[in-house]
C-alpha cells in the first residue's frame, strides 16, 4: 500500500500523505511553476518534478529528503548537432509548398520534459526522460548528466541521421498539439516502459507517431503499431502517424500492454507485436487519455472515458471510470462517489495511477478522486486544486 501521492499541477507540486484513513495535502511546492510530471523513484525514494517554466526553460527538480528541499537541475540538454525536421501545424491556411516545399531543419532545444521513468533495481542511477521535441534522454548518475538516445532520435521513421547529414529528409512522426504552447508543432515522448524482466527491453510511445520497441537497451528501435487503426488517416493501417495518448504494461506480465489512443483503447497480449482495438463506444469507452493496468493481471485495466477529440470533457456532464477484467472484451462503468452533474472534467494522460487496489486521478478542473476498491467507489481528496497534469503514487 502506498502512503504518498505526487501531483504535477499547473501551479506546482502537490504531495498527499496518507494519515490513517485520510489523505492530507502538504503546502504546494514549486509554487506558481507549472509541473507537468512528478514521481517518486521506487529504488531510493528520490522525488522528481518536471518544471515547465513559462520563461526560464524546462528544468528537472529533485528532492532527496522526501520533499523537504528541492534542487533544480539544468542538466538535460540536446547535444550540439541534434537537429530535427520541422513540423508545421496543419492549420486551414497551411500551404505545404511554403516556403520552398523542401524540408526544413531546426536545431533541437528542450521544450518540455514530458515524462520520467526509472531503471531497474540492477541499474542504480539509471533514469529515462521523454521530451518534446521527441528526444529520449538517459542518465546513469541520478540526473546529474543526461545523454540523448541517438538511435531513436535518428530513426529512419524520423528522417535518419541528421547528425551526420545521412538523412532521408522525410519524417513520419507528426507534431503534438501539446507542443503548440511553445509556438511549434513537434512530436513528444510521453510514455517509457522498462521491462522488469529485462531492463534492456524498452517501449516508448510518441505522440503522434506510435509505439517503438528496443530489445537491446536502446541501440536499435522498431515500430510496434501492427493492428493499430487510425481513423483519421487515409490508410487507417498505416505503420506510422498513430497517436498513442498513453501506454502502460502489467508489472507481473509485461507482455500485456494497454494503450489509450486518440482513436480508441487498444490492448496487446504479445508485447506490442500486435494490438487489438477493444473500445466499446456504445458503452462510453473510446476516447480518453490515461490508462492503468493491474499489477498482476494483464487483462484488467481502467480508463476514464471522455466524450471525443472534438469535445474533450466528461460524457454526459458526469465522471465515470471504466474497468475491464477480460482484456477489453467487456467494460463495467463505475460512478459511485464521482460527480454526475455539471462535471466537465478531463483527465490528462499522466493524470491517473494505480497502486495495488488503490487508484487515483486528478482532473483539468482541479478535482482529485481516490478509490481503494479497484475503482468501484470513489472519494474526493479535494476540489480546488490547480489543473492536474500528473498523478503518481510514491
Amino acid at each position, binding site marked *: 500500500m502506498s502512503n504518498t501521492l505526487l501531483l504535477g499541477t499547473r501551479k506546482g507540486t502537490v504531495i498527499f500523505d496518507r494519515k490513517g484513513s485520510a489523505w492530507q495535502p502538504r503546502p504546494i511546492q514549486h509554487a506558481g511553476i507549472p509541473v507537468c510530471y512528478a514521481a517518486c523513484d521506487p529504488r531510493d525514494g528520490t522525488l522528481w518534478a518536471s518544471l515547465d*517554466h*513559462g*520563461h*526560464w*526553460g524546462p*528544468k528537472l527538480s529533485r528532492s532527496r529528503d522526501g520533499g523537504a528541499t528541492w534542487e*533544480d537541475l*539544468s542538466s538535460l*540538454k*540536446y547535444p550540439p548537432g541534434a537537429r530535427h525536421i520541422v513540423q508545421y501545424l496543419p492549420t486551414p491556411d497551411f500551404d505545404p509548398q511554403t516556403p520552398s516545399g523542401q524540408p526544413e531543419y531546426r*536545431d533541437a*532545444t*528542450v521544450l518540455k520534459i514530458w515524462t520520467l521513468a526509472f531503471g531497474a533495481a540492477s541499474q542504480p542511477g539509471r533514469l529515462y526522460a521523454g521530451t518534446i521535441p521527441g528526444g529520449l534522454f538517459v542518465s546513469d548518475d541520478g540526473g546529474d548528466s543526461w545523454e540523448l538516445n541517438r538511435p531513436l532520435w535518428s530513426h529512419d521513421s524520423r528522417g535518419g541521421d541528421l547528425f551526420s547529414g545521412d538523412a532521408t529528409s522525410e519524417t513520419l512522426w507528426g507534431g503534438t498539439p501539446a507542443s503548440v504552447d*511553445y*509556438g511549434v508543432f513537434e512530436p513528444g515522448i510521453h510514455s517509457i516502459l522498462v521491462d522488469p524482466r529485462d531492463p534492456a527491453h524498452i517501449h516508448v510511445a510518441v505522440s503522434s507517431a506510435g509505439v517503438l520497441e528496443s530489445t537491446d537497451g536502446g541501440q536499435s528501435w522498431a515500430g510496434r503499431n501492427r493492428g493499430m487503426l487510425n481513423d483519421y488517416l487515409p490508410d487507417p493501417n498505416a505503420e506510422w502517424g498513430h497517436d498513442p495518448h498513453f501506454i502502460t504494461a502489467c508489472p507481473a506480465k509485461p507482455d500485456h500492454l494497454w494503450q489509450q489512443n486518440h482513436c480508441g483503447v487498444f490492448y496487446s497480449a504479445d508485447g506490442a507485436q500486435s494490438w487489438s482495438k477493444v473500445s466499446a463506444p456504445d458503452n462510453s469507452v473510446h476516447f480518453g487519455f490515461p490508462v492503468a493496468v493491474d499489477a498482476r493481471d494483464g487483462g484488467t485495466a481502467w480508463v476514464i472515458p471522455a466524450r471525443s477529440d472534438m469535445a474533450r470533457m466528461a460524457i454526459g456532464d458526469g465522471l465515470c471510470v471504466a474497468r475491464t477484467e477480460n482484456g477489453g472484451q467487456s467494460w463495467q462503468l463505475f460512478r459511485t462517489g464521482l460527480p454526475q452533474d455539471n462535471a466537465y472534467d478531463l483527465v490528462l494522460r499522466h493524470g491517473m495511477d494505480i497502486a495495488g487496489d488503490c487508484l487515483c486521478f486528478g482532473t483539468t478542473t482541479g478535482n482529485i478522486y481516490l478509490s481503494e476498491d479497484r475503482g468501484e467507489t470513489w472519494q474526493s481528496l479535494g476540489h480546488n486544486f490547480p489543473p492536474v497534469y500528473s498523478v503518481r503514487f510514491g
Partner: protein
Amino acid sequence: MVRVELTPHLYRFFPVLETLQIEVPAGSVAEVVRAIDKFAPGFSDYILDERGALRRHVLVSINDSILIDRKTLSDQVADGGTVYIFQALTGG
C-alpha cells in the same frame, strides 16, 4: 564596465544576485550573460537555451533598446551601459 538589472523573478532561483550590484566587462550581450554565471553558476541556462539563443519569453534590452540578435546575442554593450533582463508577460 556594464551594469546588469534583473527581474526579481530570477532572485527566486539565484538568491545571491538579489544583494549584488552586478557589474561585468563591456562586450556582447552573450558575454555579459556568461559573465553573470560567475556570480551565479547556471544562471545562463535560465535565460538561454542549449544553442545559446534567448529563450522565447525572455526579453533583454541594452539601455532602452531591445536586443536585436536573439539567436547569438551579438549586440554590443558599451562601457557605462546597462543591460536589463526581464520576462515577457504571459500566462494566467
